[in-house]
């Protein structure tokens, strides 16, 4: 009996380990880094991390729903490029609030456009969505390049008030950065959407089984538009946080965000098969990705080895996560 008891305890332990694998990895990473480089836990560094995960977090939160809904979005990079150059260029002529709103609208429209093309073609598989949004990303990037003539725009070109963007970029509310506050608000809103609204449930059902959902009267077309629009909106928010942080916007500012976002979502434990997942898991995934780069920087690991380590840890995390579904 005792042997069996220990066995089952081990089994329970192992399953917790697997379920919260990302947390375990984060803890290990934090412990290791703190041991070697005590400055890791300094308030300055914690502030750093808070600022650093802003843009990727926004983007990944949006991507979560696209993946829960059983689709994928590679157009994020293009959307970020476009939103960044459009928004920054409009601050001067339109004023900051209209520019902000136009930027968010642009992102949402890009997202909605993805879904419209996907729906109109009847492309209901992930692969079709993958390549279609890949093409659209190229198109959005090209529009951003055409719009900006390939040049970078800076804050000090803007004489009009840009206080909102400056606040988002580097301002703080108490000990929390504004970007962190925006993150908390978006997380709360998206969590409520995911857990408590009918549309959130519809998205999940769509991801679980499109045909069954449709035959039960779920409006899957609307769900698809909603997930891509959220994806686009959050990408726009990410773009705004991003260029506010660095105070400049170039038409290639979003390069790499789409794959990083998908990686973060999947590492967090949202499955690409659709139907399952959560924005909370995504938060953990992003935390791991951002912490990894922060830790490796502090440990003085070269950029090149960082990429190796990142790839290895992500591959390992995905592999382990997969083991638990087997």
């Amino acid at each position, binding site marked *: 009996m005792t042997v069996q008891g220990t066995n089952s305890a081990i089994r329970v332990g192992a399953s917790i380990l697997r379920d919260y694998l990302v947390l375990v990895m984060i803890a290990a990473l934090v412990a290791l880094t703190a041991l070697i480089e005590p400055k890791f836990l300094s308030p300055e560094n914690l502030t750093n991390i808070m600022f650093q995960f802003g843009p990727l977090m926004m983007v990944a939160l949006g991507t979560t729903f696209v993946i829960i809904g059983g689709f994928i979005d590679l157009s994020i990079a293009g959307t970020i490029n476009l939103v960044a150059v459009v928004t920054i260029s409009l601050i001067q002529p339109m004023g900051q609030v209209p520019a902000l709103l136009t930027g968010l609208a642009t992102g949402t429209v890009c997202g909605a456009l993805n879904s419209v093309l996907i729906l109109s073609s009847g492309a209901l598989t992930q692969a079709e969505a993958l390549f279609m949004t890949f093409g659209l990303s190229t198109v959005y990037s090209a529009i951003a390049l055409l719009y900006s003539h390939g040049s970078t725009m800076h804050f000090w070109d803007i004489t009009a008030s840009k206080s909102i963007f400056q606040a988002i970029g580097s301002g703080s509310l108490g000990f929390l950065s504004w970007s962190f506050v925006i993150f908390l608000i978006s997380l709360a809103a998206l969590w409520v959407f995911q857990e408590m609204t009918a549309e959130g449930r*519809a998205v999940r059902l769509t991801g*679980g089984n499109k045909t069954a959902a449709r035959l039960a*009267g779920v409006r899957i077309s609307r769900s698809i538009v909603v997930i891509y629009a959220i994806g686009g909106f959050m990408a726009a928010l990410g773009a705004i946080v991003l260029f506010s942080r660095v105070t400049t916007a170039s038409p290639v500012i979003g390069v790499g965000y789409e794959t990083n976002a998908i990686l973060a979502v999947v590492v967090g434990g949202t499955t690409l098969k659709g139907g399952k997942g959560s924005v909370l898991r995504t938060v953990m995934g992003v935390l791991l990705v951002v912490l990894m780069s922060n830790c490796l920087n502090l440990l003085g690991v070269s950029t090149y080895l960082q990429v190796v380590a990142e790839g290895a840890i992500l591959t390992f995390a995905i592999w382990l996560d997969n083991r638990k579904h087997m």
Partner: protein
Amino acid sequence: MDSGGSEVILSIKDVCKSFPGVKALDKVSIDVKRAMVHGIVGENGAGKSTLMKILSGVYEKDSGTVVFDGQQIEHTTPQQSMQRGLAIIYQELNLVNTMSVGENVLLGRFREMKGMRGTHAKARELLDRIGSKIGTTRLVSELSVSEKQMVEIAKALSFESKLIIMDEPSSSLTAEEMCELVKIIQQLKDQGISIIYISHKLDEIFEFCDNVSVMRDGRVIDTKPKSEFTRNELIMQMVGREIENEYPERPQRVGEVLMEVRSINTRKLHDVSFSLHKGEILGFVGLVGAGRTEIVRALFGADRVRGHQVLIEGKPTPILNPRDAIGAGFGFIPEDRKLQGLVLPFSVESNISMASFRKFTRLGFLRKSIEKEIGTRQVKALSVKTPSTKVPVVNLSGGNQQKCIVGRWLEISPSILIMDEPTKGIDVGAKYEIYMLMKDIAERGGAIILISSELPEVLNMSNRVLTVFEGRITGEFDPKVTSADKIMSAALGFDGECS
């Protein structure tokens, strides 16, 4: 050829198999004789499929012995058992849809057949042996269900099989196709091949099986020659209790016209018009592919069909998508439970509540307590066997899964419930419960459109049946007064019956 008759080709002794938490097989012993058709009956979950998978090498047994053709078999793979002469035709047809007939027949043996030409030649020869004229270069995805079955049989023959296991081959065959199958089984038997025939359908068991084994809860209850069984005895052994009737009485309160459908026209359907009365069960009889499913899908707005008219209580009601249909009072139980009906990894509760969002949302927000009530109510009302409403529906048995879908619609009390193959792959006990539900719905003033490939089911449950042949409605009958033969010939588009 060996003398046949008494010689044992397959001997299973004390085979056990456990899965985590379940004892799937408990000391199962069966002997199958050469050139005989051995029927195995049992409810779902009785262990039939597990046993077959052990024989074919998909699973490994925990203990016991299997002797096939004089050889004791320990570890085996699907490939090895096929080469030994033990072939299996699974319930879900086992063909690659994207490949040609010929390549499917000889799947995985391209080299052995010396290339594409050899493959097609050999496939032709095998198909000819069972008298099938299917072109070997056709894509499997273009074949009808019965044609696919023929391809499966040809595939089994390609290994010079001594024993062919057929796992519920008839579940998607129409009566005509069934005749074809019976003929082939007879032929195979004459060639000295033994057959294990797994089925729910007692008619078939009594029609052509020589010996019958009954399984229940992972055990073999009894094995006897068919002639020594009575129908009731068989059912009793399967279910473990006595069932007086297979079907309840028909609903009694047919009222005035509830719905009128005028001229559905698509590429497959031609001028389909009919009416439905309150309190009625209306059956559709026809072959798979005759257009039965297409009619109800068009009605429900599941397919893109335009130009027809639906009048509900005299009012024209446009239905462009399933949502409109639900709004107009329809419910729809699709033919494929797993692909079209359920979201398998999701909980029982959310599968039941899927169609009644309106009931538990306010201002776009879910009210989970109400959702839970809905789930609990339906689970109780339909006596769904599940430990909790939070369990993923995939863990339930087929019958209980089906009840979840029924519960989904009962919750919104539809005035018209469409049921496409509602009892496919469900065991006898659960079937009866579903029949009772149908009767109940009808008698409370609802109307049901029933589609089934099991003719007795349609004839015994419906107040009225419509026969469908090649996209047209070819007749309207009262099954109480018309003979089954007559209805069947209308559904087959010809007069006469199979020999």
